[in-house]
């Protein structure tokens, strides 16, 4: 007795992996059951209609959602993505279907108390359907009607002391890896820095003043568990300057087989006896490791901190103590000029409250981008267009070989006049005295 026939979606209820179809159906049932108990502010059968629209898309092979235009809450330029169904008569429950982005907490840690409150609120004022989480990191509340936007926001701020996340041409919701909260590899407190900067830049987050979107992500180490290097205009990635700490007994234990390589990550297959030469030393990208008799020796000066040896032998090797982070800039998806990974701008910077040094870099980058960037031009695209040197000038960072994978292979250097002895002004007639036409 479902509202819509959904033969294709029903097919997706089979198979072992959790079925979103079954889940939406359970929500549909739960809402029906609560009629009278909950005074739903958006149509009760909204989840049924979601399934209905989706089934129709499966039939047509096309989406049935259209542009949202500008909907949102007063004074904010982001946090809401407007959507309307292009078949509102068939699916009145989702005629409006705006998403709300709620700024997730650091490390995506929750208390059930918080989540339950959010569920109650979303049951009352929304579809009851969410994304835990969106790709940027937000809690994405999927679908409500226009009149509910302000109401929801008022409740969210007043009852839950919680704000929206970003969208539009502003700072997007920053996100971080779990880091020091549970990870021995963390070189700095990702959650603390992420939170501090999110709070410092609330205005940039809520009120579009940028040429385009701008993203921060915080990874505690080069393993990049929040994929910052690939997905954020500015990535903050933990690293260290001094030596990897070695526990030789534990090294021996790995060699001897008492400890599982890579913390057991490969336990699903018999890879044979652990071979430190083949599995660690030979794979070290900088070739800076060797065995001194039965002791492991690392030439730390040549180490590029790729994490491999530490990942393989976490009980034997630990990150150094002189910790900080590297800042990389410009990562983005391919549209329009091709994808970019972050490019190294600051090799090493200390992470110390109130993080003034870090903020200084951020603000210099923003000033330059807001000054030079075209509409809808991501930072990475501007760096490409203007040249990396320009970014260095704007941030007052001295050029160093760490900035490049390799020096330029074309000799087309744009010299500045002040760099050239005698300047550029010359008298052609002087020249002609020695060189006839």
């Amino acid at each position, binding site marked *: 007795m479902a509202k819509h026939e959904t033969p294709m979606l029903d097919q997706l209820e089979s198979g072992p992996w959790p079925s979103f179809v079954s889940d939406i159906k359970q929500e549909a049932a739960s809402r029906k059951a609560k009629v009278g108990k909950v005074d739903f502010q958006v149509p009760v059968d909204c989840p049924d209609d979601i399934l209905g629209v989706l089934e129709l898309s499966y039939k047509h092979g*096309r989406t049935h959602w259209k542009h949202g235009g500008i909907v949102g809450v007063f004074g904010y330029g982001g946090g809401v993505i407007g959507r309307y169904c292009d078949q509102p008569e068939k699916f009145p429950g989702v005629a409006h279907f705006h998403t709300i982005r709620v700024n997730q907490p650091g490390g995506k840690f929750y208390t059930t108390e918080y989540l339950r409150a959010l569920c109650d609120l979303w049951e009352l004022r929304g579809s009851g359907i969410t994304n835990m989480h969106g790709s940027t990191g937000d809690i994405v509340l999927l679908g409500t009607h226009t009149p509910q936007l302000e109401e929801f926001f008022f409740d969210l701020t007043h009852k839950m002391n919680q704000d929206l996340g970003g969208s539009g041409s502003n700072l997007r919701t920053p996100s971080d890896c779990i880091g020091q909260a549970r990870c021995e590899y963390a070189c700095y407190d990702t959650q603390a820095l992420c939170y501090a900067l999110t709070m410092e830049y609330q205005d940039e987050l809520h009120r579009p003043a940028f040429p385009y979107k701008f993203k921060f992500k915080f990874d505690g180490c080069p393993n990049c568990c929040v994929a910052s290097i690939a997905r954020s205009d500015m990535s903050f990635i933990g690293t260290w300057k001094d030596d990897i700490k070695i526990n030789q007994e534990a090294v021996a234990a790995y060699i001897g087989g008492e400890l599982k390589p890579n913390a057991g990550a490969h336990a699903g297959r018999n890879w044979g006896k652990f071979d430190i030469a083949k599995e660690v030393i030979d794979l070290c990208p900088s070739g800076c490791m060797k065995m001194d008799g039965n002791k492991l020796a690392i030439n730390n000066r040549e180490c590029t901190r790729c994490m491999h040896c530490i990942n393989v032998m976490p009980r034997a090797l630990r990150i150094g103590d002189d910790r900080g982070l590297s800042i990389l800039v410009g990562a983005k998806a391919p549209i329009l000029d091709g994808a970019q990974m972050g490019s190294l701008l600051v090799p090493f910077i200390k992470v110390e409250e109130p993080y003034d040094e870090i903020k200084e870099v951020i603000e210099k980058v923003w000033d330059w981008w807001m000054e030079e960037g075209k509409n809808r031009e991501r930072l990475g695209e501007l760096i490409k267009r203007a040249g990396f040197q320009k970014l260095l000038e704007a941030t007052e960072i001295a050029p160093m070989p760490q900035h490049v994978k390799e020096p330029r292979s074309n000799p087309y250097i744009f010299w500045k006049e002040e760099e050239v002895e005698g300047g550029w002004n010359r008298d052609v007639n002087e020249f002609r005295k020695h060189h006839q036409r």
Partner: protein
Amino acid sequence: MAFISSGYDPKDPMKNRITDIGPRKFDEFYPEIVKKNKGKWLYHEILEPGVLVHVAESGDELYTVRCGGARLMSISLIREICDIADKYCDGHLRFTTRNNIEFLVDSKEKAAALKKDLEGRKFAAGSHKFPVGGTGAGITNIVHTQGWMHCHTPATDASGPVKATMDVLFEDFKSMRLPAHLRVSLACCLNMCGAVHCSDIAILGIHRKPPMLDHEYLDKMCEIPLAIAACPTAAIKPSKVEVGGAKLNTVAVNNERCMFCGNCYTMCPAMPLADKEGDGIVIMAGGKVSNRISAPKFSKVVVAFLPNNAPRWPETTSVIKRMVEAYAKGAKKYERLGEWAERIGWERFFEVCELPFTHHLIDDFRDPAYYTWRQTTQFKF
């Protein structure tokens, strides 16, 4: 239904309005054991697929049970998750950066009981609610986007192909037999929300037909200059049409120059691209994000087009399965898919994955394309 006011006053929006308060502070949500040992973790171990222990300097042991799920989640399910967290984790839990759920407990026993409980829970129709796994050298949850569930520009669905793919890869979610992590991602259009541009395997929706032009309404629905400016290949020009006697401003598209990016449609709803035969899926492979051993890599296009064959996208899932098996068979321990492909050479990759090589896979987009051609006599027959 009666309208329930939150207290918001439309006539005076500023009246005790609260703004710019940001997210709740992380430490409000930490479990005790995390508060106590934060920054003092010594090492970790993956005890079995989906179960981790982290040991702190204090000697404390933190057990994590990770389970997968559809990130498209109802509040009923979230409430069930809360019930579980209340029962085992004094009301704490977290989500991972790949949409898995992590329950944290402080003893092996609790972890075992919890795991048993989770594995037992199923939806009415029989699929797991909380399959435990997704750790180590296996395949974890697929990060994905909206698709036909919410977005206006998708060329494929997200949740459907993800479900179909995870059903096929389920065994690898629950085991750790692969040479290294294998990350699968999906994005439903070229905007590539997410990290499909650097995933071991990526499922990407693409359009293949230039926009239709809704001439009669175009000028009303769009800012023509913005639509023109949005096109990366300058394929759009201003133009005029006669509709029922009236001369209307509109645009013309040079179809030959169209790369089907959909930017025009994002700017102008009167230029829809979506089409049942035209839209479908591109498979990419060989990307990575971590800096482990090799630098991060972009994913490469290895299959130019597969149809949107709902509800199960069998062509897509079988290509992915083939790649995973070839990788499992051929790669060395610790070698990511892209590192493996580069070691054996892409010519071998296509051979062992039984994928045809078509002209579409040769880069012809702007200057850097040159660097992807082969500038050496070194190749394999």
